[in-house]
């Protein structure tokens, strides 16, 4: 489904990676690992189309993503380094707004149950929650994104407790089993087997 061909990325005059190619099919995990500053986040941003690679291209089902734009965006969930939740809004508001923007239909009940799955209070402004809870508020979107084939996750396991990691792991495995593709970055052992590992130097 996702294909990267001969990618090269430069940031601030430094080459982060080059000649990077891979293919990712349905039901596959790709784990991107590497030291800090090795370009994990940049690679994810290239894959989701936020960053234009200085060479090479990313293709989705054979078509370059630069030409697809919103059509490609509708097929993916990207959870970046920043949690993308508003401190002044409650977890529920955050989640339902995020879903509307992503074009994912989510009823009020679905939103509530997704929050419950991540053990989040739904009527407190996110500002008052802990770091880990904020992370969960961002991840709760995944519980509603079962129908979106491609998940691109930047350090999804960071700041989560053991229970949260387990829950997220189950969610990811479930998505892969249903034929989704997942790319995630991590510098720690995720605790479950990825189909493939990409080590960035």
């Amino acid at each position, binding site marked *: 489904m996702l294909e990267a061909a001969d990618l090269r990325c430069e940031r601030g005059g430094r080459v982060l990676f080059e000649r990077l190619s891979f293919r990712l099919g349905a039901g596959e995990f790709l784990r991107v690992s590497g030291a800090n500053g090795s370009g994990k986040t940049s690679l994810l941003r290239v894959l989701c*189309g*936020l960053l234009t690679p200085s060479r090479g291209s990313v293709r989705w089902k054979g078509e370059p993503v630069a030409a697809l734009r919103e059509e490609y965006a509708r097929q993916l969930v990207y959870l970046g380094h920043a949690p993308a939740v508003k401190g002044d809004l409650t977890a529920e508001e955050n989640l339902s707004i995020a879903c509307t*923007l992503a074009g994912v239909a989510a009823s009020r009940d679905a939103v509530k149950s997704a929050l419950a799955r991540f053990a989040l209070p739904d009527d407190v402004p996110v500002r008052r929650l802990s770091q880990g809870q904020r992370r969960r508020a961002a991840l709760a979107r995944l519980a509603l994104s079962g129908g979106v084939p491609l998940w691109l996750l930047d350090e999804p396991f960071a700041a989560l407790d053991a229970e949260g990691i387990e829950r997220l792991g189950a969610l990811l495995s479930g998505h892969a089993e249903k034929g989704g593709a997942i790319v995630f970055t991590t510098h720690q052992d995720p605790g479950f087997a990825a189909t493939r590992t990409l080590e960035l130097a």
Partner: protein
Amino acid sequence: MLAAARCVVYRDLLLALRRRGDVAVALLFFVIVASLFPLGIGAEPNLLRSIAPGVIWVAALLSSMLSLGRLFAADYDDGTLEQMLLGAAPLGVVAAAKAFAHWLVAGLPLVAIAPLIALQYDLGAGLWGILALSLLVGTPVLSLLGAVGAALTLGLRGGGVLLSLLVLPLYVPVLIMGAGAVEMAAAGLGGGGQLLVLGAMLVLAAAFAPWAIAAALRISLE
């Protein structure tokens, strides 16, 4: 597409509501700037009457610019802007919605309190209408053009000062036409011509600025 636009406007209004203080500060700034001139120039009624349209418009322009810095910066910092770029709706639509929300929060209240300032300047009650009308047509142009500058200066050092350097020259025609409309009306000639030009600017800005904002956002987020 419309659902996304409505959602962005709703979200920004909700955020403004939760942070009423920020909105109030911009309004207060407008009132204070407009009140400074009589103190600095002297309270000669004829003089005040003749500078009123210009002063009110300059104050409106500065206050609308004051809140531009926040337009995209908060969303940029917490990653929400990335999500908007990766949203299901075209970025131009989202950008237009953001600018519209900015106008609702920072422009529309100015229209409402402008008559109050006009009172301070002893501007005849017959002119309140055209003053409010010129602000009503002109301030959305300020929000749209300002959003281009805000998107371009996103995350830059010294962004605030740079933003004003980029945006103020683009604001000049709006200022000239807006203040001109009131001035012509005060001279008993009707400011229709200026209002029509303002309308033309609004149409152009509404049609083309969202593209420029979208392009600028894509560049700034790379």
